[in-house]
Structures are given as structure tokens and as C-alpha cells.
């Protein structure tokens, strides 16, 4: 292909970008708006055809690139994501909810019937909301950006790489790597903080150790995440008990497969401490309770 044709190729019509959300906090799509310096140049390069948080202009696809935030929590959403997939060339999940179910996925692991009956007078009411699941459980996902929230630098790198046509650099290595490159002191070794960095995927810039606390795994497991080894290490060093290790995993990527066994154990133990409906609550919400009955 002659060089001139290629130049025209590159200047081809702007890709159509959509941003949609399911059950989530909006923080990941906000990250796009948080690329303050790049936002307007990006909108010069892509056509934003769907982004309810930012624009009233609406479109129903097709999308060249669709950023999907949030987990699937209702049958309607499960239906909708299939329809969106059909209209989308490249579907990218953004954030812990979309890639791992988010913290709300913890509800998936308890004994649902008991759990709902204990909390709700009308368990049937929340029938459709029994689980929160990642997008990849429902449709094929072309790429994922991890994190709770996603990292602005990774979002930018992803968009740039997509526009340039190269493979985005989203390293699958431990948080420790970026922590040590940044010259930070290991909080496990020097302060006895339980840090999940060794089993967590990098991308955040190793923020928590920089703020003198342990990583809480909001980017989810890295490849070869050795959860059993970390547990053994923390217990052997008397940093945490086994149960406390489980609790650390019951966070924003709790239901990622590598973390789910630990997180599930913790989620079940939390339920035991619940005061289901304190009497003062009834007083505070008389009409709500009436309505429920």
C-alpha cells in the first residue's frame, strides 16, 4: 500500500465510542472525564455516541468501541449486555465491577435464601438481584481495564493504543514491581502492614503503600496469584490470623476466581455479626416497615 493511502487510512472517520454502565458507582466512566488535559483532544479523535453521564445526545450503536462499567445484577441487564455486544466491534470492560463483579458480588456467596429472609420481610422482592456478575460471564469481552476505579493512565494508554493500533501496555505483574520502581519501602517488611500487593495486578501506581497502608487488591489478582503462599506468610509472621487474611480479600474484587474462596469465607462470617433489624430502626422508619408488610 503506498504511503499516501496509508496516511488517509489513518485519518479515516472517527471511531464511534460508547460508554455505558450497569451496577456501579460511576467512578470508572468519570475517569474518562478526569482525563482533563486529554478529554477534548480525545473527542477530536473519537465520536462519543453514547455517554449518558456526559451528554444528552443518544445513539443506539453500532459501536466501534464500547466501554462497559458495572456488574450485571438484573435479568434486564443480562439481556441488554447481549444486545450491546451484538452492536459492538470491540467491547472493553472497565473497573472492578465489570471485570470481577465488584464488592456487590459478595452477596453471591452467602446462603441466599437465609440471607434475604434475614434482611427482607419480602424475600421474593429481590429475586432478580440475587447475584452481581462480571460482564465476561455473559458475553465475550475483548479487553479489560482493571481497578476500583480504573487508572487514568491505563485508560489513556488503552485509548491511545487503540487509535494507534498497537497492543496496549497493561502489564500483568505484581503491584510490588511498580512499588519498588517508585522507590517505596515495603510496608509488609518495614511496618508489618498486611499488603496484598504481591498477589494483585499492577496498574494503580502502587498507591496504598505510598500512603503507608497495605494494598487492598482493587485491581484484582495478577497471573500466578499465590494466595495460599501469602496467607501462610502473613500467619507465620503473626501479621494476621487466617480469618483476617480472608477478610482482606473480601473487597472490591472479592469474587475474582483467585480471591473468591477466601472472600467467601469472610463474607459468611460477617453475616454472623449482623443485627438484622434493630428495634430502634422500626421506630425510625415506621412507614417503610408498614409498606413492607
Amino acid at each position, binding site marked *: 500500500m503506498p504511503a499516501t493511502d496509508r496516511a488517509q487510512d489513518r485519518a479515516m472517520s472517527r471511531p464511534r465510542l460508547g460508554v455505558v454502565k450497569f451496577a456501579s458507582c460511576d467512578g470508572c466512566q468519570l475517569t474518562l472525564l478526569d482525563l*482533563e488535559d486529554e478529554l*477534548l483532544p480525545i473527542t477530536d479523535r473519537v465520536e462519543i455516541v453514547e455517554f449518558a453521564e456526559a451528554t444528552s445526545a443518544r445513539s443506539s450503536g453500532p459501536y466501534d468501541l464500547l466501554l462497559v462499567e458495572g456488574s450485571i445484577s438484573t435479568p434486564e441487564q443480562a439481556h441488554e449486555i447481549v444486545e450491546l455486544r451484538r452492536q459492538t466491534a470491540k467491547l472493553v470492560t472497565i473497573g472492578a465491577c465489570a471485570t470481577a463483579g465488584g*464488592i456487590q458480588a459478595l452477596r453471591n456467596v452467602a446462603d441466599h435464601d437465609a440471607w434475604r429472609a434475614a434482611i427482607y420481610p419480602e424475600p421474593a422482592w429481590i429475586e432478580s*438481584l440475587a447475584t452481581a456478575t462480571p460482564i465476561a460471564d455473559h458475553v465475550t469481552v475483548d479487553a479489560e481495564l482493571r481497578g476500583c476505579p480504573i487508572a487514568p493512565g491505563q485508560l489513556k494508554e488503552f485509548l491511545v493504543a487503540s487509535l494507534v493500533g498497537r497492543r496496549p501496555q497493561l502489564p500483568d505483574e505484581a503491584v510490588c514491581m511498580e512499588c519498588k520502581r517508585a522507590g517505596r519501602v515495603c510496608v509488609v517488611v518495614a511496618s508489618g502492614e498486611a499488603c496484598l500487593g504481591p498477589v494483585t495486578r499492577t496498574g494503580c501506581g502502587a*498507591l496504598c503503600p505510598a500512603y503507608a497502608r497495605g494494598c487492598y487488591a*482493587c485491581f484484582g489478582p495478577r497471573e500466578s496469584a499465590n494466595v495460599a503462599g501469602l496467607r501462610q506468610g502473613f500467619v507465620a509472621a503473626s501479621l494476621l490470623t487466617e480469618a483476617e487474611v480472608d477478610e482482606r480479600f473480601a473487597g472490591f474484587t472479592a469474587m475474582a476466581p483467585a480471591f473468591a474462596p477466601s472472600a467467601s469465607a469472610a463474607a459468611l462470617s460477617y453475616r454472623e455479626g449482623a443485627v438484622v433489624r434493630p428495634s430502634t430502626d422500626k421506630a425510625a*422508619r415506621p412507614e417503610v416497615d408498614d409498606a413492607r408488610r
Partner: protein
Amino acid sequence: MHGGEGHAAGGTATVERDFDITQLTRVEGEGRLRLRLREGRVVEARLNIFEAPRYFEQLVVGRRPDDVLDIVARICGICPVAYQMSAVHAFESAFGVEIDPVVRSLRRLLYCGEWIESHALHVTLLHAPDYLGVESGIALAAIDRPAVERGLALKKTGNQIVALLGGRPIHPVSVKVGGFSRAPRVVELETLKVALDAAVKQSLEIVDWVAGFETPACHEPARLVALRHASDYPMNEGRIVSTDKRIDIANTDWSTTFEERQVEGTNALQSHTRDGQPYQVGPSARITLARDQLHPLAGAALEKTGLADEIRVNPFRSIVARAIELVHAAAEARDIVAGYRPPDAASVPFDPRAGSASWATEAPRGLLFHDYRLDERGRVSWARIVPPTSQNQAAIEAALIGYAPRVLDLPDDEARVRIEQLVRAYDPCISCATHFLDVTVEREP
């Protein structure tokens, strides 16, 4: 996903009109507005939520207080600091923790950052397009790029403040019971100085910009509720007071005066005063109730607009209130940075104990109340969180009922734009509001 449209039912205008805005845009989260008018009267005004609930009040059960701070931040990606602030002060009050005065000012600085980030986003990218007849901030950039760039620059400064204190602008990581996990070094805070000087200037320009917007006439006075503190513009402390002076309670005692209830015809829980009246929280309420405590630069800017009285009664002027608070937050942040000396310790130790922990702070959108029961290990056994949007919901619907008849003569599209603009004037955060609903969502077929 959802197309929004208004349509006239029955073919003839003005007999019965049904505005069904199936997905509200330029708000945080997924909501729906349904407004039915018959014979020039509003027969139904419903702000529906179809955001899927995420059960945060259950998710915090069994957790340590410091874990709760991380979890409640995830209720909202736009105002995570607000959730952390209400929660951390609730726990500290329950455990009898006295925080270092420097930590107190750093928390105000953190809140300033979030106010700036949230208000700059809302004013420039979400709300201003309504006044200027465009569909989005991106479309606005096509006609007034400098205005959008100014808003983005200001928003960036807000984000920088939060990121400096907490590692990242969304879901920062450093707030803990007793203080912060790490306090900044002087040289780090000094990196904000140039941006804050610019932020003060930018926010003053924004005040001039939005005060000049052509604004729909509207007189919908509501009972305004906000915190009021003895010496400072309300953020983390103060008593809950109202414009009609009938409310003056400790910020731990929200439940004595307010309640959440289910109202027929809507799926959302709404807050009212216990005597069943709607009320309004947010920037307009704060400015009206604590005007004398605004930073002098913000006070002067408000004076210059001459709109203080109108802010109280016209919801469409809330954009000016937000702009004034941008000036306040930028100016106060600049003062805190200038006077900063690191605390002796970033945090003080505490002993967890059983009891109840409640506190209200001022989120960008208004009063945010947290209420927890703690077991003997200091872990949460029950929780209730009342975000500003659920408190404003009744006020929004009341304002719609009052205002909607005035747009009856407009073509559908224009009428719909005005109605949405009014809803946006409250900066509703549906993500926040929904995440506390104990109820499931009933979808329209």
C-alpha cells in the same frame, strides 16, 4: 441504551401531556423522570430510579471501621470523600477520638478538593449546556472551548488536591479513623500553590459567566437545610439548621427530626421532616444559611452578582451557588496550603467499642448522614446512610409540580429540556440515592 423522548398523548396539545424521560442524562447514575399533566395541572411527578441497588448498608455489616471507609466510598465515584468524611467522623465520635487540628484542616482541604472537582464538573460539563442550548459539555466546547477548558482545568485542580492527600481523585486511600494513614510533606502541598492561585481566578470567572446566563423565572421557595458551624463554612462539623429556623439539632441527631419513607407512586425512599414536609439540601441551602461564613472572596463575589435572594428561591440559580462555592473552596484550599505545618502524627490511636456512630457532613450535593451500630469489637452490626439526593427528591418533585405548568405552552422538546434542566439544578446523584434503597426496582414494561 435508552432513547429519551417526550410526547403528547392523545394527539391534541395541552389536554393531557405525558413527559417520559426514560433516561436522565448528565446526572450520575440511571434515573427516569415521569411527569403527567392534565388540564394544565401536574397529576403525577415521579423521579424513578432504575439503577440497580448494591446493598451497601448490608455490605458494611461485620466490617472494621477502617474497612467501612473504603467500602462506602464506592457508593459514589463523584463524591467518595463525602462518604468517607461522614463515616470517619461518625466512628471518631463514637470512639471519643480527638483528632489533631492539622488533621482537621487537611480534611477540610480534602473536602475542598472534592467540592471543586464535583462542582466544576457539574457547572461546566453537565449543567451549563442547558443554559446555552447544547447537548453536552463536549458540544459546548465546539462553541466555547475556553470555557470548557477553564472548567476542566479547575476540575483537575480539585482532583489534584484529593489525589495529593489520598493517592487518587476517585476512591482515595488515606483517610482512616484517627486521622490519615500519611500526612503530606510541606513540599508536596506547595506543589498545589500555582494551581490554586489559578483556581481562585478561574472560579471567579465562572461566577461571572454563570451569573450572566439567561435563567428561567421560577419561584419555588423550599425549606432549606444545611449544617452551620460556629466559625467555618459548613463541611465536616456543625448543627443541622433550617431557613425557617424550626430545626436546630446536633448533626448526630438527624433521626430525631427527619425520616425516610416510602411514597406511593415512586419506588424510591424519600426523606421528609417527621412532620411530613419536603426540604432541600445542597449549595443553595448552604449559601443561604451560612452566607456570613463564606470566604471573603466568595462573599464579595456573591455580593457582586446580587443574586443571593434569588438563589434561595429559584432552583435554576443553583448553578450560581455552585460557582460561589467553587470560589470558596479554591480560596480556603489556598489558605490551608499556605498555612500548613505537618501534624505531629498523621493519626492518633483509638480503642474500638460498642455503641452507635452517627454523623452528618456536607457533601457537594448537600447533607450526607451516616448512622451505624457498632458491636463490642467496634464492628458494624447495622447501618443506614442517607445521601443528599434522597433528601432532595421530595423537593425536586415539589418543584416540578410547581414549575411544570409554566412550560406547558412550549413545544415538547423545549419543555422537556426545561424540565430536565430543573432536575439537574439539584445535581441529583442517582448512584448515591439508589445505593441505599432497600427496595427492588420495578421497571416500566
